[in-house]
């Protein structure tokens, strides 16, 4: 399905929203850094970093959007053998 607005119109409309969302993420990471303790080894921090990397890339080779790739990054894996394991 075509999108009625062109990319310039989308950028004009969303520039400040995108800026604001990037600032929110940056401020959250700053907050983590200012807080006592160290979460660098927490696997969730790795996921956050990987998610940010995906956001900077284009769609992947399969044509999956950044949003879909990030959703899959934060998802548990699916194995089609689950019914056998559950004996269902």
């Amino acid at each position: 399905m075509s999108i009625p607005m062109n990319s310039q119109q989308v950028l004009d409309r969303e520039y400040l929203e995108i800026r604001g969302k990037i600032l929110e993420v940056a401020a959250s990471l700053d907050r983590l850094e200012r807080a006592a303790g160290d979460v660098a080894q927490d696997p969730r921090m790795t996921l956050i970093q990987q998610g940010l990397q995906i956001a900077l890339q284009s769609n992947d080779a399969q044509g999956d959007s950044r949003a879909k790739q990030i959703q899959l990054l934060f998802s548990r894996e699916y194995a089609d053998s689950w019914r056998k394991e559950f004996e269902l």
Partner: protein
Amino acid sequence: MDYFDPHIHMVSRTTDDYEILAKMGCVGMSEPAFWAGFDRGSVDSFRDYFHQLTDFEPQRAAQYGIQHFTWLCINAKEAENVELSREVIAMIPEFLDRPNVLGIGEIGLNKNTKNESTIFLEHMELAIQYNQQILIHTPHLEDKYQGTRMILDMLTADSRIDPTRVLVDHVEEHTAAEVLDRGFWAGMTLYPITKCTPQRAVDIIEMCGGERLLVNSAGDWGPSKPTAVPDLILEMRRREHSEDLIRKVVYDNPLEFFSQSENFNFQPRD
């Protein structure tokens, strides 16, 4: 614009919300049975809940010109209690001929466990036995992808299931296309943090098209927004989508899906 919210938990909302929804164009809604925020202790708790869904809520909605429909089940969280779940499933037929009952729902998975899967299959059997439509809850956050795939496995493995009579709800970017590709209806839930924003939902409409796609608020006792569907309407207008497409997603599609239930006696406004 008149719209239909296909998934909203009005037992959790005040009467003020009915008034606000009516003012914003809501003319109909369907309310799946769900978790109360605590695990209920007996089948009679569910019997009382089903009375509320089939008797009290339609009356409360009607005061504001909203037609209320419902779906019955024991939800995925409480499905961990297999014994109680089986008692509830055995009791559900008492209510299936109530005039606002559309089918079995929202059944599904929560943590993708064996017990949840067992009870999902037994709900499926009930729906097949009584020729009922099915409304499905898919898990949240990291469990969604795996759980949605498991649910699709169970549905597609049974040739008696007609995918055009099944709505798989709470789809997002990583699950919408597969649900639609397999012939099911898909619902997007506009809900803060754990589900989809109106902006992302419109993205999904733009990527998947408007066929067999519904949008709902899931308004419940959590931090939800019962007026989320009008938020989506506004977002689509801001992006200059046609009124025909907007109406298809928020009104025509729900009516087309629900019309497959013999109890769906919705009366459009003149």
